[in-house]
């Protein structure tokens, strides 16, 4: 842990959890979605739903979706900026059930794709992404993170970790998940070091790897 986690971050107020944390959720969602965003349906749950106006949680999430980091002053004006950039935003108050009180579900639409991401702000400005489409995940975005969709087959995880190992990338934590045996497996891999485009395309070019997303830490 860094001292700047306690004397920091530099952020737009007023709340570490409801503002800075919300920016991070939006920002990570956008990194996972990758590509042009046309529309976002934002579902606020719990305390996010009750206090979003005073905390600017809506503006924070949208700011994150536009690629702003927690210290970006454009967050204050993000709703207008989204409009200018042709991103339609719809806000919904909802009950997502069984999730942390500070949680948002983001349904993101591109020109020909869509994706649903759920993230929670879990205290201070720390967050975690808990769901991507139908995949349960659990990562904070504090470390370089890879999300890999691969064929659910013996040896696939080994192939992925060997490739990473061959580039001297040390795995700090790894979590695998699948919805149905033999179909698609989802792996979240947190690494000690940043991952280059070269490594990402190596993974992407493997036969049994369907999709690779790289999420840079804040």
């Amino acid at each position, binding site marked *: 842990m860094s001292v700047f986690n306690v004397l920091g971050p530099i952020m737009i107020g*007023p709340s570490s959890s409801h503002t800075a944390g919300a920016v991070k959720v939006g920002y990570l969602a956008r990194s996972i979605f990758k590509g042009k965003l046309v529309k976002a349906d934002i579902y606020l749950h719990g305390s996010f739903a009750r206090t979003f106006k005073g905390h600017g949680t809506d503006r924070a999430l949208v700011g994150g979706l536009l690629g702003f980091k927690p210290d970006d002053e454009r967050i204050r004006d993000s709703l207008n900026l989204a409009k200018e950039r042709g991103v339609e935003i719809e806000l919904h108050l909802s009950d997502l059930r069984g999730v942390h009180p500070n949680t948002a579900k983001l349904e993101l639409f591109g020109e020909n794709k869509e994706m649903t991401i759920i993230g929670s702000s879990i205290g201070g400005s720390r967050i975690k992404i808990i769901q991507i489409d139908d995949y349960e995940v659990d990562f904070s975005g504090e470390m370089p993170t890879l999300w890999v969709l691969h064929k659910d087959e013996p040896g696939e995880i080994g192939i992925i970790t060997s490739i990473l190992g061959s580039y001297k990338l040390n795995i700090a934590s790894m979590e695998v998940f699948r919805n149905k045996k033999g179909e698609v497996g989802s792996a979240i891999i947190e690494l000690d070091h940043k991952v280059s485009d070269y490594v990402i395309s190596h993974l992407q070019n493997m036969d049994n790897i369907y999709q690779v997303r790289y999420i840079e830490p804040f």
Partner: protein
Amino acid sequence: MQYNKIKELIDKAEQENKKISQIVIEEEIYEREIERETVIDEMKEHLKIMRESISEGLTPGHKSATGLTGGEALTLQNSNKSLNTPLYKKVIIKALAVSEVNACMGKIVAGPTAGASGIVPAVLITLTEEHEISEDKLIDALFTAGGLGEVVSKKATLAGAAGGCQAECGVGSAMAAGAAVELMGGTPQQVGDAFALALKNLLGLVCDPVAGLVEVPCVKRNGFAASHALTAVNMALSGISSVIPPDEVIAAMMEIGDLMPVSLKETSEAGLAKTETGQKIAEELQDF
């Protein structure tokens, strides 16, 4: 940082005849595998933002989105009806200024949280100005503040939702007090005493914000917690020690936080949030 106790920080500093800040800086360099200069520059950037938030809070016309807070740092600065305690007044003005900027969606340095972000800069920057202390020493003191807070985050909590406001403004005040003692030339032991004295006397502080917002009582509480830190600094520098050592105070804070009802931990289900006025404000803000 490898240290889990304030005592370990104090012992290490005393053994090596260093300031606590130096130990914290060395740890940061080691853990993040970066150069000393990079670490110092990062803190300089944090200090710059702290100063900017103070100036911004003292420009006229600041009001939060809800209208509940803003402009009172300036009110205090412009008032000549205060006690003859210039240092205290300057500290309170800065603490309010930063907290008001925070409430207005301005840029601040969270420390230990956004809601308690006014305390550390108010105390340390004011003392530096008033006593003409060097910029380098101020940077060092900020590392000490951060290091003390890091121990609390490891051993207890910095979240109002988990420990009440004692974990936010209480710890902020203790971080400021300890760091200020180092800034004023106190020993590592005195840093620990100031930290313990400040935290000890804000134990039990609940988090019951009106309408769930970081405004009432949070903004003004930053002013109180900052002046509270000065009391601890005065005592510790004179050689008054804390009977209960800092690490035991942190443990007590966590125990109290655990025993504190959920209704008083950032849920706005009791206390000030449920006063007649508090509820009225919450209702008015519903359609806001």
